[in-house]
C-alpha cells in the first residue's frame, strides 16, 4: 500500500522518538490506516529510537493492534461474562454464518465487515451485546444478526443531523435529564438527547436539558428523567426517539394538549422487568417511585457514586456545588501530608482493585520511598469480562476520581502521575481527558494548586488491549513501551516501579472514595462495613438478574440481599444457582451460601475474591463446567506467555475442560485438573496466573457432581452443545416458526404437523428453541 510518509512524520513529531512512545505511535498509525502496515513500522524504526524487536513485539502483544487490514466496519461481539451466559457464543457463530466467514478469515469477502470478539464492552445489563463501529445493539438473539446488520446499514445512510443549541435557563419549567453512561449511550441516548433537544427547540420550551452520568439502572436504558418545577418526578425507561415528543408534551405542553400517549406509556409499565430480546428496539417507561426501583436503590450507600444521576459528569461548577474539591481544599490547606495519610489509614479503606491491601499503608510506603522522581498511577485498566464499575466511575464522576488522585499525590509527595485507561472504554477516555483539561485550565492540576505550593501533573495513557496490564508491574511495563510482561515482586512498585522509580498504584474506585473520607472523616467511612473491610464496594451486577447495573453497597451486605432485593431476583421464574464474583480471578459461590456477608476475607474463604467487583448471577440453566471453561479460555487467552505455569498450565487445564464439555473426558481428568490448578496457583509468576485456577477450584468445590456428570458425557443443564441434541416434543403445534428460522434447514417445513429436527444437520444454535411459542423444543 501507498504510505504517506508525511503522516508518519507528523505522528513522530507529535509523539516524540522515545522508546516509551511505541504504543501511542502504534495507536496513531492504526487510527490512520486501520491496521499496522509493515512499511509504516519499518519507517518508525528508521526514524525513532524504537527498534524492530520492540515495535513488532509490542504490536503483536496487544489485542488492539491489527497486522492485517480490516473491513470497513468492525463488528465486535462482546463475550464478557454476562454476554456469555446469555448466549454470546451463539451470536458470534450466527454472525460468522451471516457474513459467510470461513476458517480463520474474519473479514467478509466484500471487505465490509471484520468480526472481532471483545472481552467486555461494559454494557453487561443489556447482554448479549454486539457493537458495529460506534453503534451498540443489546439483547441480540442469534436469528436477529441479519437485522442488526441491516439496521446498521440503513442508519449509516441516513446521516442524522443533531441540533445543539443551549436551552435558555432563565425560564425553567423543569429539567429533563438524560443518562449519558455507556449503557445509555449504547442504547441510543444520543438519539434521545437530539430528539429532546429538537422538541424543546421547536416548541421553545423553557426547559433545561441536562446530561447525567450513570444512575445504575442500566437494565432500563436509555433513561429520561423529567423533573417539572411543579409536580412529581417521572423516570422513563427504555425510551424511543419517537416517544420523546409525547413525553415532553405530557409534562410541558400547554394544558389541553395533554395527550393520550402518556397513559399508554404508563400502561406499559408492567413490561419493564421483562428481559425480552431485541426485536427492533422495545422501550418502555416507568415511574421513578415504583416500588422495585426504590428497592433497587434502597440498600445502597453511595460514596464513590455519590449524587448519582444528578451530576453532569463534566460540569465542574456542579461538582463543586455538591461538595466537590472541598476535600482537596481541606487536605491542602488544613492538613499535613501525614495527617492525610493517617486519616486514610484510620478509615480502614483497602485497595478496591482486588487484592485489598491497606491504602493508608501503601501511601505511607510511597511517602517514605526515597527517589528524586516518584510516580502515581491510577489503574483504570479494568479488564474483568464481567465488570464495569471503573468505567462508570470514570464516565460519570471523573472529577471525584481526579480529586482523590490529587489528594493522594499531595499526601505522598508525588508530582507526576498517569491515569492508565483501558482501550475498550472510549467514552471514559474522552471524559477523563476532558476533565483533566478543564482542571488544568482551572488550576486544579498543574503548578501551585490552590496556592498551596503543591504541584502535580497528570497524563492519560491509553492501554492497547491486554487484561494482564491490570497487573501493576505489567501495567508499568506497558507505560514504558514494552510488552505487558509482569515482573516478580518484590521489589514492589512503591520501592521500584515505573522507569525504576518509586510508584504508587491505586485503582479508580480507591481514588474515588478518598474525597469522602477526607471530607467526612475516617470515622464516617469506617462506621460502614465489617471488622476488616470498611466502607462500601461498587459492584457491577449482571447476568440472570432482573435489575442489573452499577450498585454501591456497604461491605458486609449479604449476597442474597444484593441478588434478591437490589437485583430483584432471578427473572423468568428460574432458580438462583450461584453468583460469580471477581471474574476470572474469582469464583462461584452457590446460592446456599448466599447469606454470607461480603467482605475481602469472607469471599476469599468461600473460594471467590473481591477482584474488581464483577458480580454475575447464574441460574439453573447455567452449567458450572461451562462457566469454568469460559473463564479459563479467557485467562488462557490473556496470559502474557511469560512463565511456564501460566502459559502452558492454563492451556493444559483448558484442554481438560475442552474434553469435559465435549464428552471426550477420560478417567483421572478431574484429578489432573485439580493437580494442575494447584500447581498453576503455586507456581505462576503474577496474580493472573496465580488466580486463574480459582474459577475451576471453586466450581469443583461446590459443583463437583456436575463435573462428574460431564465425565460421563452428560451436561445436566444442557448448555454444552456437544453433549446435547435438540428434539421436538408432542407439544408442537406445527406453526413452522422454527422451520422458518432454522439457519441450516435442519427442520423440514411441514405446516400443521409435528416438526422434526434432523440432528445431523442441526448446529445447535438454539434459535428454534427460543422462537418456539409452545416450548416444544427441548435439549437432551
Amino acid at each position, binding site marked *: 500500500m501507498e504510505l504517506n510518509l508525511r503522516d508518519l512524520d507528523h505522528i513522530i513529531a507529535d509523539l516524540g522518538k522515545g522508546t516509551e512512545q511505541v504504543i501511542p505511535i502504534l495507536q496513531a498509525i492504526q487510527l490512520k490506516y486501520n491496521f499496522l502496515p509493515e512499511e509504516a513500522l519499518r519507517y518508525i524504526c528508521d526514524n525513532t529510537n524504537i527498534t524492530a524487536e520492540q515495535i513488532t513485539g509490542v504490536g503483536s502483544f496487544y489485542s488492539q493492534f491489527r497486522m492485517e487490514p480490516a473491513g470497513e466496519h468492525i463488528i465486535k461481539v462482546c463475550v464478557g461474562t454476562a454476554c456469555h451466559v446469555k448466549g454470546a457464543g451463539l451470536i458470534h457463530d450466527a454472525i460468522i454464518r451471516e457474513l459467510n466467514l470461513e476458517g480463520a478469515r474474519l473479514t467478509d469477502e466484500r471487505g465490509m465487515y471484520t468480526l472481532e470478539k471483545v472481552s467486555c464492552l461494559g454494557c453487561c445489563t443489556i447482554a448479549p451485546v454486539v457493537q458495529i463501529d460506534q453503534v451498540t445493539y443489546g439483547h441480540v438473539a442469534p436469528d436477529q444478526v441479519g437485522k442488526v446488520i441491516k439496521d446498521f446499514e440503513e442508519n449509516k445512510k441516513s446521516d442524522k443531523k443533531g441540533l445543539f443549541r443551549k436551552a435558555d435557563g432563565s425560564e425553567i419549567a423543569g429539567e429533563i435529564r438524560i443518562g449519558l453512561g455507556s449503557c445509555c449511550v449504547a442504547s441510543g441516548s444520543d438519539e434521545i438527547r437530539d430528539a429532546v433537544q429538537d422538541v424543546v427547540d421547536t416548541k421553545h420550551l423553557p426547559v433545561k436539558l441536562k446530561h447525567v452520568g450513570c444512575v445504575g439502572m442500566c437494565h432500563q436504558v436509555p433513561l429520561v428523567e423529567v423533573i417539572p418545577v411543579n409536580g412529581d418526578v417521572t423516570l422513563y425507561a427504555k425510551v424511543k426517539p419517537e416517544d420523546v415528543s409525547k413525553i415532553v408534551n405530557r409534562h410541558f405542553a400547554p394544558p389541553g394538549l395533554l395527550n393520550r400517549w402518556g397513559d399508554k406509556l404508563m400502561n406499559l409499565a408492567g413490561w419493564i422487568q421483562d428481559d425480552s430480546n431485541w426485536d427492533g428496539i422495545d422501550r418502555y417507561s416507568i415511574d421513578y417511585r415504583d416500588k422495585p426501583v426504590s428497592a433497587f436503590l434502597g440498600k445502597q450507600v453511595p460514596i464513590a457514586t455519590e449524587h448519582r444521576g444528578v451530576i453532569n459528569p463534566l460540569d465542574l461548577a456542579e461538582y463543586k456545588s455538591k461538595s466537590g474539591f472541598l476535600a482537596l481544599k481541606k487536605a491542602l490547606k488544613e492538613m499535613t501530608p501525614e495527617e492525610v495519610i493517617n486519616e486514610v489509614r484510620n478509615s480502614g479503606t483497602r485497595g478496591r482493585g482486588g487484592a485489598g491491601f491497606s491504602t493508608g499503608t501503601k501511601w505511607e510506603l510511597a511517602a517514605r520511598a526515597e527517589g528524586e522522581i516518584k510516580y502515581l498511577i491510577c489503574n483504570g485498566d479494568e479488564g474483568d469480562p464481567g465488570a464495569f464499575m471503573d468505567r462508570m466511575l470514570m464516565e460519570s464522576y471523573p472529577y471525584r476520581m481526579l480529586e482523590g488522585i490529587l489528594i493522594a499525590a499531595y499526601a505522598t509527595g508525588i508530582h507526576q502521575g498517569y491515569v492508565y485507561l483501558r482501550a475498550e472504554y472510549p467514552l471514559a477516555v474522552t471524559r477523563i481527558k476532558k476533565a483533566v483539561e478543564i482542571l488544568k485550565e482551572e488550576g486544579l492540576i498543574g503548578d501551585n494548586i490552590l496556592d498551596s505550593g503543591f504541584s502535580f501533573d497528570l497524563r492519560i495513557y491509553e492501554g492497547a488491549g491486554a487484561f494482564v496490564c491490570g497487573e501493576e508491574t505489567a501495567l508499568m511495563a506497558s507505560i514504558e513501551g514494552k510488552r505487558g510482561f509482569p515482573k516478580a515482586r518484590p*521489589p514492589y512498585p512503591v520501592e521500584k516501579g515505573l522507569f525504576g522509580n518509586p510508584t504508587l498504584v491505586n485503582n479508580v474506585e480507591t481514588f474515588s472514595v478518598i474525597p469522602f473520607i477526607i471530607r467526612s472523616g475516617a470515622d464516617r467511612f469506617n462506621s460502614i462495613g465489617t471488622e476488616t473491610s470498611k466502607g462500601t464496594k461498587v459492584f457491577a451486577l449482571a447476568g440472570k438478574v432482573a435489575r442489573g447495573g452499577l450498585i454501591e453497597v456497604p461491605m458486609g451486605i449479604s449476597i442474597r440481599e444484593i441478588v434478591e432485593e437490589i437485583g430483584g431476583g432471578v427473572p423468568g421464574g428460574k432458580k438462583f444457582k450461584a453468583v460469580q464474583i471477581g471474574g476470572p480471578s474469582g469464583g462461584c459461590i452457590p446460592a446456599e451460601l448466599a447469606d454470607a456477608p461480603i467482605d475481602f476475607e469472607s469471599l476469599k474463604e468461600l473460594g471467590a475474591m473481591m477482584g474488581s467487583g464483577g458480580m454475575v448471577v447464574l441460574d439453573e440453566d447455567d452449567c458450572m463446567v461451562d462457566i469454568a471453561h469460559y473463564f479459563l479460555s479467557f485467562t488462557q487467552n490473556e496470559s502474557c506467555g511469560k512463565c*511456564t505455569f501460566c502459559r502452558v498450565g492454563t492451556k493444559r487445564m483448558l484442554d481438560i475442560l475442552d474434553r469435559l464439555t465435549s464428552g471426550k473426558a477420560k478417567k483421572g481428568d478431574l484429578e489432573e485438573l485439580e493437580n494442575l490448578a494447584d500447581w498453576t496457583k503455586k507456581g505462576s509468576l503474577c496474580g493472573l496466573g496465580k488466580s486463574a485456577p480459582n474459577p475451576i477450584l471453586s466450581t469443583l468445590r461446590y459443583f463437583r457432581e456436575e463435573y462428574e456428570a460431564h465425565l460421563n458425557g452428560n451436561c445436566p443443564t444442557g448448555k454444552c452443545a456437544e453433549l446435547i441434541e435438540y428434539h421436538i416434543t408432542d407439544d408442537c403445534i406445527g406453526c413452522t416458526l422454527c422451520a422458518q428460522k432454522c439457519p441450516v434447514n435442519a427442520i423440514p417445513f411441514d405446516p400443521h404437523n409435528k416438526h422434526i429436527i434432523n440432528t445431523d444437520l442441526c448446529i445447535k444454535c438454539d434459535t428454534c428453541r427460543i422462537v418456539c411459542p409452545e416450548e416444544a423444543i427441548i435439549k437432551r
Partner: protein
Amino acid sequence: MKKVISIIIDHKEIQLEAGETVLQAALRMGKEIPTMCYYEGLETHTSCMMCMVKDAKTGTLFASCSKPAEEGMDIITKDEEIIEARKTALELLLSDHVGDCEAPCQLSCPAHMNIPRMNRLLAEGKTQEAYEVVMQDIPLPSVLGRICPAPCEKACKRKEIDTAVSICLLKRYAGDFGKIESQNHRVAESPIPQIAIIGSGPAGLTAAYYLRKRGYQVKIFEKEVRLGGELRHPDLHEKLPAEVLDREIDVILNTGIQVQFGVDADLAFIEGLQDEFAAVVVATSVPKFEVRSSKFKNQDIRVFPIQSAKLAIQAVARGKNAAFEVDQFLKGENVTGEPKRFNSRFGKLLEPEFAEYLKESNDLDRLEPEVLANGFSSDQVKAEAARCLHCDCRKLDNCKLRDYSDEYAASQRRYFSIHDRQLVTKNIQQDVVIYEPAKCIKCGICVRITSKYKEKYGFTFIGRGFDVQIQIPFGESIAKGLQKTAKEVAKACPTGAISDPTRIK
C-alpha cells in the same frame, strides 16, 4: 560499600551484599539449582520457573533468579514439594516441546545404535568412521546386516513420507567395508579382574567384546568346537555365509579374548569358576532362575545371566547391557545396565511437516541393491544414506531440558497431546544457525542476547500467551537477525530450538 545482610539457605547462614539474588547466593554456596531462562550477564526474565525455591517461613515457592535476598530470609532449595514443582514445570514445557531427542530409529533399535550418525558418515563417504559408530553398539555389523529384521526401519520417519531408509543394508556396508583397517585393535592388557562368559552366541560375543574393550580379561567357555552359537543355525546359512560370521568373530577375538571349547557349563561348573573369575556372564540357555537362585560361597563374585532372545539384535542388546552391568558391579556402582536417557518424542509426522524434514535430505526413492547378496555399491550407499531425515536433535548432549528431564524423571506424555501439537518447522541457515521453533520453551535468552548486542533485526516475541513465538521481525532472515550473535545464541539456547548447523559427526 554495599550493605551486608545475612540469610539462611538450607539451614546454613550466609552473608552477602544487598542486591544479590537468592539464586546467586545459593549458587555461591554450591547449591544446585536448575535454571533454563537464567543467563549470566543478561537481565532476568523469570520464565521457566525451574529455579523455584521455598520460603521456609511462609511455605511459598518463588523463582530465586529474580528475588533479591533480604535480611533474615530462610530459604530451602530442595525438598519434595520443590522437586514436584520443578518436575511439573518440566512436564508442562515438554508438553509443548515438539521434537525428537534421539531419532526414532535409534530408539527402536534394541541395541540402541546411533543410526543417524552412521548415515551421515556414510553419506559423506566416511565408511571407516561409520563402522566405528556401529561398533559402539553392535559388534557384528556384517552379520546383523544380513539377518536383522530391522525394527529401526519400521520406526524410520522417512517411511511416513515415502519409504524407510535402508538402514540395515547401510549397516551391512559399514561392516563389510569399514572393518578392514581396524581388525587388529587389541586392547591394553590388564591382569585383573577376569570375567568368564558362558556361551558364544551373539549375546556372549557382544558381552565379551564390550568387556574386553573396557580393559577386562575375558574368557569365553563354549560347548561346541566353533564360536557363534545360534548364528550357526542351518536356517541362516543362506543369508549368512560362514566366512562373514567367522570374520566378525575374529574381529572380536582379536581384541584379546581367550576361548575354551567343549565346556558344557552347568551350575556346578559355574560355581567352580568363582576362584578364578570376578564375574560370570551366562549367555547360554541355562534357565535364568536357576542361575539367579543358586548360592555362591564367594559373596564378591556375581553371576549375570542373559535372557535368551528371539532376535539376534536383541541378543546383542542384552550382551551389551550385561557388559554395562558387570562393569558397574566391578566398579562398585549401582548395577542398572545401559543408562537410559530421557527422550522427547512426538509421534508421526504430519503432512505439512514432510517438506520441513526433507530440507535435510534428498528426494530419492529407496534404493535396492542390484543383487541383494552383494549389498549396496559405494555410490548407492551415499545416496541412500543421504535419504536420512536426521531426526535426531543437534543438542543431544547439551540440552538443559533433556538433562533436567532426566534428573527430575519428568514424563512428556503426561500433558502432551499428539492430536493438538504445534507443527515442526526447520529454519535452516547453513553457516549461521538452525532454528526449530517447535522446540522452543520461550525462555527469551536469544531475545535478550540479540537485544544486548543491538542486532538490527534481533529475535523478538511475537504474539502472546500459549501461542507466543520467537521470531525475527518483519520476516527477515535469521542470517540478517544474527549478524553478530549467531554463535552465542546457538550455544545459549537451553534446548535444541536454536543450534549450530554443523552436526557432531
